């Protein structure tokens, strides 16, 4: 069983693709430029001081790109991406709140500090709400774009499948399930770019519209001025030209993976000159478009305006016609409705005066605010700590937090199981009953006192635990057979024992037959050999 050492593909990273810094920079700029449209709209509608938003948007974009890049690394595949991203977003929003307050002209609301307890809504004013939405949108757009480019990279299983053609090998079965094809990823990126671009353009265009009330109290719309301001124009140009360049890069990512999987050798000139050709095409078309008669849009615009106004008037006429017809139809029923009399208007009531007893049991008015702050702080701290921990920087001591998280996850699992059942409350009681028994850590159990099947499972899990401590952790998505492949690759001298242990575990865990005591004893012998071999190994780091 102990053949030649298998190459380890688990740590493969398509560095040639994923490590292009200029692409990350382009995504950052592209993402930050989406604030131009909404900002133009807010600038036209409010008098807020928003000088901080550009650096904030850039920071949000950098954060999104950086987290997507880290989550795409092989050793980060098993991290909880949702928790990490939620934590990053929470930290971003907190930092934005502080930044807005720190900006001159947007200071903290005046008043005594107790006001914060009584009125927690002071935290979220309209400006913060809008800016938070913008920053979150920038962060989301950057993270999504960067994640799309990470997904376009060549994956470890594709490398394994190309380099190992032996389908009878367990590694050959790693092959190639990709829930989303690369073509779909490119289409997703392009669709998002188009959709967000539409919103940005629309917002920028609407910022030029002046809404007012005319002499006869009729709402009317007018264009404040022709054209857009220079920063908005620059941001839109940046968004669309960079978007086209990135679309070309996404296309390259799709093609190079397709060529790789089809066994085609691509010349270095193809990938090397791709950016040049893309840039030339975009810049050439952009330069040629400058020479087109742009200003001739006025006549067409007026024609479209006329058509739209005509359609609106026709729609209104149709609406009034339908209302008239409906009222004619309802005329015979008017006598029935005439008998109903309106209730007399209610007299204004004096406010109730609380009694002495009510005064004694009334809660203090700051309690609701304090509760809000406490919950908010707990959520932000939890998410922030999760994000920092995911980045490898433990912010708090792990013990208590881990226990609390384990308890919370246990509740979540049981609630989900109860909700899935036909009798939710009965199911909850049933599953809650054994929880009362304290769960021992796995290393304190006595293997000899267990049933044979449980003993085999216990020994296998101990092996997994020790192998993880030695640097070959089992990712949650891997089956025991796949994990055995990992162990063989990094631990070839113990390959027969690993195979035997895995087979025994699969039989005990998934097999229909009973496991005999002799078989469990044999597995224990295998396990002892494995443990002896593992003791000689050095842990990670």
């Amino acid at each position, binding site marked *: 069983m102990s053949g030649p050492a298998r190459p380890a593909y688990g740590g493969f990273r398509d560095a040639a693709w994923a490590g292009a810094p200029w692409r990350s920079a382009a995504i950052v700029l592209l993402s930050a430029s989406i604030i131009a449209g909404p900002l133009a709209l807010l600038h036209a509608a409010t008098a807020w001081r928003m000088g901080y938003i550009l650096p904030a948007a850039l920071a949000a974009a950098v954060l999104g790109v950086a987290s997507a890049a880290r989550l795409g690394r092989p050793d980060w595949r098993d991290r909880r991406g949702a928790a990490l991203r939620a934590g990053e977003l929470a930290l971003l929003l907190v930092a934005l709140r502080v930044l807005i307050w720190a900006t001159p002209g947007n200071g903290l609301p005046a008043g005594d500090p107790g006001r914060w307890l009584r009125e927690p809504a002071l935290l979220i004013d309209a400006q913060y709400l809008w800016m938070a939405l913008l920053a979150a949108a920038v962060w989301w757009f950057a993270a999504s774009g960067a994640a799309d480019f990470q997904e376009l990279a060549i994956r470890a299983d594709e490398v394994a499948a190309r380099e190992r053609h032996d389908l009878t090998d367990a590694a050959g079965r790693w092959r190639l399930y990709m829930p989303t094809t690369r*073509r779909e990823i*490119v*289409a997703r990126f*392009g*669709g998002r770019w*188009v959709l967000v671009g*539409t919103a940005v*353009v*629309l917002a*920028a*265009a*609407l910022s*030029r*519209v002046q809404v007012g009330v005319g002499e006869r109290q009729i709402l009317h719309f007018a*264009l404040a001025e*022709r*054209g*857009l301001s220079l920063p908005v124009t620059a941001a*839109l*140009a940046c968004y*669309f*030209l960079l978007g*086209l360049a990135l*679309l*070309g890069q*996404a*296309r*390259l990512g*799709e*093609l190079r993976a397709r*060529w790789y999987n*089809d*066994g*085609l*050798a*691509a*010349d270095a*000139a*193809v990938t090397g*000159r*791709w950016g040049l*050709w*893309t840039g030339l*095409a*975009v810049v*050439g*078309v952009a330069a*040629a*478009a*400058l020479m*087109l008669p*742009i*200003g001739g*849009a*006025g006549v*067409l*615009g007026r024609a*479209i*305006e006329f058509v*739209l106004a005509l359609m609106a008037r026709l729609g209104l006429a149709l609406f009034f016609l339908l209302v008239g017809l409906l009222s004619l139809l309802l005329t015979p029923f008017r006598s029935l409705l005439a008998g109903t009399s309106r209730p007399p208007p209610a007299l204004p009531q004096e406010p109730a005066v609380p009694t002495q007893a009510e005064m004694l049991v009334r809660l203090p008015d700051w309690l609701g605010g304090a509760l809000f702050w406490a919950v908010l702080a707990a959520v932000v701290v939890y998410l922030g700590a999760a994000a920092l921990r995911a980045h490898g920087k433990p912010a708090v001591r792990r013990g208590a937090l881990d226990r609390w998280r384990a308890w919370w996850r246990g509740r979540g699992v049981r609630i989900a199981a109860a909700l899935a059942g036909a009798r939710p409350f009965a199911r909850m009681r049933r599953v809650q009953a054994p929880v009362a028994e304290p769960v021992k850590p796995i290393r304190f159990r006595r293997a000899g006192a267990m049933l044979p099947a449980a003993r085999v499972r216990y020994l296998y899990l101990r092996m997994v635990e020790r192998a993880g401590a030695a640097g070959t952790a089992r990712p949650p998505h891997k089956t025991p057979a796949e994990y055995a492949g990992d162990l063989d690759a990094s631990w070839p001298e113990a390959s027969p024992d690993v195979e035997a242990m895995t087979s025994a575990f699969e039989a005990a865990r998934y097999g229909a037959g009973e496991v005999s005591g002799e078989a469990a004893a044999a597995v224990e012998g295998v396990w002892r050999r494995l443990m002896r071999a593992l003791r000689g190994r050095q842990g990670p780091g």
Partner: protein
Amino acid sequence: MRDLPFYLLFLLLVALLLRLDFILYLVYVLAGVYALSRWWAGRAIRQVRVRRLFADRVFPGERSEVALEVENRGVLPMPWLRVEESAPSTLGEGEPPRRVLSLGPRQSVRLVYTLVGRRRGVYEVGPARVGSGDLFGFAEFSGQAAQADRLVVYPRVIPLTHVALGSHAPLGTIASRQPLYADPSRFAGVRGYRPGDPLRAISWKSSAHAGELQVRKLEPAVLLTTLLALDLSAGAYSRQLRGSSSEWAIVVAASLASYLAGERQAVGLAINGLDSLTGEVGWTAEPRPGRRQLMRILEQLARAQLADGPALAGWLPGATAGLGWGATVVAVSPSGDETLLAALGRLRRAGLNPVLVVVEPYGQFGVVRERARRLGVAAHEVSDEDDLRAWQRRPGERRAA
């Protein structure tokens, strides 16, 4: 990105309605990139020409270097061009080229690979498929750029120096032991006159020179108008040896054809097997002399495959109907069964010179030979190369120990 045109239309409406020149400019840029990409990719792929240059006929063991010339004849560069050549895997020395290239205007690239004539047959080389597209994913085109060509791997030819094929034809170029067939065109010297010699045989110049009558010595010779009748009826071969024996039969036929053509004889071929190129079962090439005829025969032997066709005994009379008197018919067959011998006997009676060559090893071949002898048919067992060596020695030369 299929909805990009709708998106552009929407942007155009917004730009026209709100009189925003810059958005109109964006529409120009996006529409321009979209249109340019589609036009560029479609036009560039039409300017690609792929040619395949190679020696399309090889003998076993020879190599044929295949050069695939990919040329961009247009003035537009091609950012990427996918070229996939297909070649028979049994002949390839490595994989045929499957590359992605970037071609500048009027640039050509030569992709070279090698095919080795490992096994007799007619093989398809190609077609070469090309594919290209734009830089943004708006358009992609693919097609067949070079048709499939044929590579003929001739059967193995074992050089023979002397093949014992008799003939009734009195004139020819192959020396015969029978003085009856002395060829007046093959002068072998002079000898003294003996009574009974015809007067026209006297060489008057030599007689004058020697002072006594001298008679020209002529070398006996025969002309072998030969038809090689190759039995490729699958049912004639034993099941276990079917593959190897039929290939050996083709090698024997090719070697005989090469020998006879080398002796400037007219050679023809009749096969009751399958022509792998046309799908025809059973075909005949009339006997003709010359190297071109030899190459034609070798090519037909390269194409021949076993088939569930008619048995040679039944098919042979029709195939030999056009042969003149005295022509030799060499039946290359896995066995000499009674029906085949009877058919050869009938050919003998019709004035032809049938010869049986048995290519499968047969323990009681002596019985076959004796039965054939009684019918006036020469029979040879050539079941391997050792048997063929008898035809590689001059008459009188002994087999090496």
